């Protein structure tokens, strides 16, 4: 289980590759499920030029660990990786990566979805958008399970 909070652009595919190379799981896993969340250049009908992500250091890690632990109780997971951006972000940059390794696909698919939805609901991150008009606004709530 690895949780990384990063303040600069990351390549989700390199993160997966690096993590998987370090795993002592060769031959043991049959499924890897990944979710990558990427910044859009529009929201709520407005053009968005940039975004700043703030978090509650310490609590973020604690909540994410708790989410993974609960997922491990529900599904058979061999490994889990979460990478989440903070700081200033531009459209098309990745915001979040969830990757789950398991023996069979159902565990990987379901755990990945569960972890992402729980992160959206409970991990203390907040987005502030900068619109094309240079006006800034806080994102008031996350979308449901869309």
């Amino acid at each position, binding site marked *: 289980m690895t949780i990384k909070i990063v303040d600069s652009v990351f390549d989700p595919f390199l993160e997966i590759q690096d993590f998987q190379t370090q795993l002592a799981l060769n031959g043991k896993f049959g499924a890897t499920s990944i979710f990558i*969340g990427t910044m859009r250049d529009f929201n709520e009908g407005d053009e968005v030029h940039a975004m700043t*992500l*703030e*978090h*509650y250091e*310490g*609590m973020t890690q*604690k*909540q994410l660990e708790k989410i993974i632990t609960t997922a491990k109780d529900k599904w058979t997971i061999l490994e889990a990786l979460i990478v*989440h951006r903070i700081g200033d972000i531009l459209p098309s940059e990745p*915001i*979040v990566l969830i990757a789950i390794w398991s023996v069979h696909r159902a565990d990987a698919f379901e755990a990945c979805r569960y972890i*992402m939805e729980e*992160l*959206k*609901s*409970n*991990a*203390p*991150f*907040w*987005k*502030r958008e900068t619109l094309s008009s240079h006006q800034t606004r*806080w*994102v*008031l*709530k*996350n979308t449901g399970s869309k």
Partner: protein
Amino acid sequence: MITITLHYFASLREQIGRSQETLTLADSITVLDVWQYVHQTPLPDNTLIAVNMEYVERMHYICDGDEVAFFPPVTGG
């Protein structure tokens, strides 16, 4: 005496104009009462509260040394 630290995040921090403060009280009170004592206004409906980085309900009683955080709904991911 009970001394706690209060933390505010995101839009709530901007509205309040500070990110943290220390509070000393004679007795334990609930986190809701902490808010009302400090701010003299009702706690906004959608505010989330954490004590020592764990979510708590509004009627949770504080202990000496607690880190109490108030923040708006989370919007990560």
